[in-house]
């Protein structure tokens, strides 16, 4: 008696698979649909990673050209979007420029722990209490985006994928080729870094 082979691989549901299969079966004229679907998202991701409009445009174009070239190798074992961001992240990393605003450095937990007793908070500040829609305005979002730009790249990549693009820890780990634990450590430090920048902004307002 033969026992059917069991596979542990979960079947992935993905709204993009139908389009990818069509392109891979020879309908190359449908490639622009893929561009339309992801152009806006990739532009924002690339802009946050490159911090420069011209570099972001180059990265998006290069990402789509790489996707066109390698799409036939896509194995449907992950969501297409995750594979796409892996291509995009690696394109942006190759494009990186040294920046005095976001020098590559390790963020240590110690730098986010109050060293002086006077700095230990004794109440929740208003900016963390008021309704989000009352707090949000263009100036604050500009400050937040500026603060994101100043994060060292390896932390910026993680927080952009997790908190802005909405990928899970495991998806982010797969996109960046890191362990889940590493993603969690980087994310926590990136959030603490941004929290301190926001705190500074609200205290000096």
């Amino acid at each position, binding site marked *: 008696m033969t026992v059917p082979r069991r596979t542990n691989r979960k079947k992935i549901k993905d709204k993009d698979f139908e389009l990818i299969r069509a392109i891979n079966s020879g309908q190359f004229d449908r490639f622009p649909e893929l561009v339309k679907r992801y152009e806006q998202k990739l532009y924002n991701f690339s*802009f946050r990673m490159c911090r420069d409009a011209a570099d972001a445009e180059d990265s998006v174009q290069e990402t789509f050209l790489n996707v066109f070239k390698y799409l036939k190798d896509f194995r449907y074992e992950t969501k297409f979007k995750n594979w796409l961001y892996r291509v995009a992240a690696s394109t942006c990393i190759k494009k990186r420029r040294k920046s005095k605003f976001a020098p590559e450095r390790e963020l240590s937990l110690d730098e986010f722990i109050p060293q002086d*007793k006077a700095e*230990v*908070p004794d109440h929740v500040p208003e900016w963390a209490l008021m309704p*989000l829609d009352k707090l949000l305005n263009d100036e604050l979002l500009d400050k937040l985006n500026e603060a994101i730009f100043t994060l060292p790249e390896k932390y910026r990549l993680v927080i952009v994928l997790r908190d802005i693009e909405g990928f899970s820890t495991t998806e982010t780990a797969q996109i960046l080729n890191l362990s889940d634990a590493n993603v969690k450590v980087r994310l*926590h430090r990136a959030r603490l870094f941004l929290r301190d920048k926001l705190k500074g902004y609200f205290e000096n307002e």
Partner: protein
Amino acid sequence: MNKDEHDHKHCLGLFEKLSEYLDNELDEVTCQEIENHIKECVPCFVCLQTLKRTVDLCKQAGNRTVPKDFSKKLREVIQNLPKSPPAG
């Protein structure tokens, strides 16, 4: 616990896990430990609230619209691609 007592090792141990707590990635025992702790520890409660608000704000960070000229150029590049990807 007031701010003069806030140098406890326990606080530092939980401080490392606050993002995982916000993301529901901790086991039940550790979650309970954090919840019990922040009921009594004002500095840790403040830290958690400000961190949570930071995450909420990141989710609203907004989008830049793709410049029209670039979008047009990108479409032209795509239209001019060969009818099949290069063999590789």
